[in-house]
């Protein structure tokens, strides 16, 4: 009995340590003590100044708000330098992302190992690291943090029916995503909308609507822009994004990547291959409830491809053209694909841990965990010696 308790305690400790490692490996640049120049970092610094000056909506990115920069402003006002404030902000963001991801995946999987690996894949995803540090788009970084929260709430509604907690969480998370990045709001809203139809849980429309209402000011600006082009002060250019997406081979990169197109990374790729191996070689099928994730993963992968006919879609009408231009690059959808791919990949690892062979049961998850962490550390390290401190 005592031995069992000891084992459980030890197991819990290891589990918690793994989460700390995950969080740490995706937060390394925060410990630099300075802001890394490059990407959109200068724009975001300017937006911090905008918020200090009281501008809720950014002039640089008129459809996005500066709401989530409040912690940065407060930390700066508390006397911390921009570099330290940034570091704390990133650590908080990554902690929240890890927590929200764990929350979501524990609701989806129920099993500890699969939750751990799904969180690992989500947080250490090369696209997530790219968004947080290489591109330096803090809005999208916040959206990556809040998306699992919105999904958690909706998963609860799908499973148990209407619940106030779940609904409020969905609404707040969706509004938060909207105020962080309007593009991610549109994508998240689209996915949740389709999810409600997929699972036929129409009560889910209520929190979605509530979220839209809470995001009202931003949503109105967005709708006005899409249908009328705004008042001309937005200065958002119309552009074709076709041809700038991923080539098939670029999906598989891990260490370095072409401009703005990080790959799946070794860990996530390993998890996906494990799932495919189980399906083909061991005839172990993905549960039917995961079909939703697989469908959207494939859809988003296609949408992120350079062959996807974005310019044909843009011809539907001017609002669609504006909407497509707003996305700036199809690579955005690859990030969304990675979010969904975490589910089958984690499922694969979990099932592998039930196999007879010790090499597969222990070796495969160990290698995949190590690979995910190693790639995250590699990418963060690369950035710290490629990117100069912001002067």
């Amino acid at each position: 009995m005592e031995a069992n308790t000891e084992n459980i305690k030890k197991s819990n400790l290891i589990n918690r340590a793994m989460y700390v490692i995950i969080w740490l490996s995706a937060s390394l640049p925060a410990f630099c003590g300075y802001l890394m120049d490059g990407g959109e970092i200068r724009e975001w610094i300017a937006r911090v100044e905008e918020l200090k000056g009281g501008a809720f909506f950014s002039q640089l990115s008129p459809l996005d708000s500066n709401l989530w920069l409040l912690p940065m402003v407060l930390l700066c006002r508390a006397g911390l330098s921009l570099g330290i404030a940034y570091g704390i902000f990133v650590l908080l963001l990554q902690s929240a992302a890890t927590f929200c991801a764990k929350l979501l995946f524990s609701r989806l999987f129920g099993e500890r190992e699969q939750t751990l690996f799904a969180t690992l894949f989500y947080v250490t995803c090369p696209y997530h690291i790219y968004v947080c540090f290489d591109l330096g788009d803090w809005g999208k970084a916040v959206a990556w943090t809040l998306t699992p929260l919105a999904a958690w709430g909706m998963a609860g509604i799908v499973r148990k029916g209407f619940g106030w907690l779940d609904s409020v969480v969905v609404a707040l998370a969706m509004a938060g995503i909207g105020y962080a990045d309007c593009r991610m709001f549109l994508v998240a809203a689209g996915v949740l909308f389709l999810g409600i139809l997929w699972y036929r849980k129409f009560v889910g429309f209520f929190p979605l609507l509530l979220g839209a209402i809470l995001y009202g000011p931003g949503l109105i600006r967005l709708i006005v822009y899409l249908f009328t082009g705004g008042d001309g002060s937005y200065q958002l250019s119309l552009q074709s994004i076709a041809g700038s997406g991923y080539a098939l081979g670029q999906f598989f990169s891990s260490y370095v990547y072409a401009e703005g197109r990080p790959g799946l990374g070794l860990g996530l790729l390993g998890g996906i291959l494990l799932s495919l191996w189980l399906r083909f070689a061991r005839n172990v099928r993905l549960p039917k409830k995961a079909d939703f994730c697989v469908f959207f993963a494939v859809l988003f992968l296609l949408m992120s491809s350079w062959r996807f006919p974005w310019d044909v879609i843009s011809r539907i009408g001017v609002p669609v053209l504006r909407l497509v231009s707003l996305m700036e690059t199809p690579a955005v959808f690859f990030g969304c694909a990675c979010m969904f791919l975490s589910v089958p990949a984690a499922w694969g690892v979990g099932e592998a841990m039930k196999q007879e062979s010790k090499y597969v049961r222990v070796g495969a998850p160990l290698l995949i965990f190590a690979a995910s962490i190693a790639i995250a550390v590699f990418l963060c390290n690369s950035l710290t010696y490629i990117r100069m401190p912001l002067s």
Partner: protein
Amino acid sequence: MDKRKTGCSNNWKKLACLCIVILMGFCAVQMLRPNRQYTYAGDMEFPAEEAFNGLVAMDGIALPMGVYEASLEYRTDVDLGGRCTLQDGTVFTGGLLTNGEHFYSGLDRTSFRFWLFEDTEALQLVLEHEAGSSLWVGDLVITETDQLWTIFLTFLSFALFLILGSVLIQRKLRKGLLCREQRDVLFGLAVIAGMASIPFLLGTSVSGADFTYHLQRIEGVKDGLLSGQFPVRLEPEWVHGHGYADGVFYCNALLLFPAILRLLGFTVTDSYNCYGIAMNILTVGISYYCFSRIFKNRITGLMCSGLYTLSIPRIYKLVITSAVGEGSAITFFPLILYGLYRIFTEDPRSGAVLSDGHLGGSNSLAESKSLVEPKSESGISVSGYETTWIPLAFGLTGVLQTHVLSCEITAFLIIVICLLCIRKVFQKAVFWELFKAAFVAVVFSLWYIVPFLDYYLTEDMHIKHVSARTIQERGLYITQLASHFISYGTGTADLGGANSLGIGLVLVVVFFVVCILWFGGKLREKGEPILLLGKASVVFGGGLMLMSLNLFPWDWIQSWNRIVASLVSSIQFPNRFLGWAAAFLVTAFGFCLWYCQRNGERLGYVLMVVLCLAGITTSSLYLMDYVIKNQQQFQLYNEEGMGFGYISGAEYLIEGTNEETLYYKGPIAGNGVRVERYAKEYLNVEMTCANLSQEESYVELPLLHYKGYRAYVPETGEELTVQKGANNVVQVRIPATFTGTVKVGFQSPFYWRIAEFVSGTGWILMGICYLWKKRKFYGSEHGKYQKV
């Protein structure tokens, strides 16, 4: 429930197959429709001082979706002084694919392809023009081709093949015909092939030093087939239509595949990438086949296949330098290794192996009914000594017909192995198998060897005059061998002449592991052939690594005599030895796994597996990521976009030919000769001429003179003398007072045709023997033989 799911899945597959067949029928019907032609009048003159870029010469061209040939009439007085192409801002991105074509003073029309995947009414003809040359542009004629439908048919056929393949595999899985291990291996091989093919899945082509040359070879095979040559000896469009004997000296058998894709309408980039993927699949398959049979273990075979296919030297050759020939030759090295291993280690007294009925402990249906051949304990097929020549024969054929330099190195290694095993070589059975392998390889390759020797011995080729170049300074530094994180591309400059590659840390570690086992006395057991293989692998692997270094005294060896100087010079880069070094060291890796398994060293086995996986994921994939990011990439659609002039070192020109003057031009008539009508298509010329003088004269044609050109009068059959003219072009001697039509063309000498017949017969006989043996085997009692 499972049965219903399977039934449902099968219904979908049947429906998909039906849809595909209907679509294929639709495509076939479209191909029967006559091809349309559209003419757009033009008459624009551009003076010499006027330079422009992106001038829209014609606008509003309306065309339906399709693959077309654009023929623009023009006149210019300078070669490469301008360019024409097509553009369309209204079709979707990727809806119009073309690179256009340059203008040449010797031509009066362009003929480039373009792919249009969306109906348009706004296609534009765009011109570029440099100052210093005049340009007149006339009518544009756009002719539809069937290639859009052949492309669709190819895709549909591939889709059908995939569906039928998946049905077959599912059936085998349901019947239990594929054991667990086989399924694991199949999956593993697919993953390895996929990983190795990443650089070919970018939609562009990664460009290395030899990239343009090999693209020209593929285009040359395509044009050669269109000109009626088979096999293709002289690439007709190369050297601006003069023809180039690359096909005679550099075997292009494997390039038939991408050339056929080009004929079906695929772009240059897509055809090249498909070839790369096909070579990866072939390498994975062949290396697995060989290593699994050497070590009689599927998992060992799988890991060796992964290490070999994703080895640094192979990635360097096939991807980084685009050395397609050498990269393709590496595919066949394991076959040679396996063949030699079987010949030298198997017992010549054994007939067919008796199946003992024990098949690795599994009770599955698949394993109780054996597949084609009897199985050993591990479940890997074995067969009698009389078949040991087969892998070696095919390996030698493959290397011979892909890369001559690799053939030189292979021959050298085989000679060394035979010298070391000289006593065995002179055993009747062993000698006979070696002879059979060599003989069959020669028979299979005779179609290539005879023309090669004919031209090499009878023509004064430039390749015979390049013995002076030294190679030692191009060798690697010793530290490079164990490089693990190799990042190639802009900024990673070559090290003082040495190319930045190595054999990889993993294989170097394997080398040392086997050395430690050997010199630690662990490999003393006699009579076990794999122990001998392990030792031989490190000896040869180590020796070949040494030969790739700048420490190796190549300069001193080159000073021995002319023949040696020529052979050494032809190697060009000592790093060529790393291909074989990789083959031997991967064999050493397989040996380590075998050793650990046999001695129950579980920790050692696990460490070796982790080493293999770590090597592949942290070294090979790392290198490929860097290549994809940093190396220049091109999207080439039509061959005209890259021109026809690049011939690398011009090795296959007749010595003394000035290639810089070999641009498109018309016939040059000698004194008294008047050429009235002249038409040239590929290497065939038809002209009507008259010699008004009383003396023999000549007409020089824009064709490089290689042995095999004939000129004759079609009406009478009279042969006219063909000889080398100025700058080694074809000169046809026109008799005095001759008037009439002369046809000139390249014709393979009769003994080349005999050689082709012999090779073709050899392949057919081989096929018949194989089918007969298989039938005989199936006809016997479940494939069991009685021991002789």
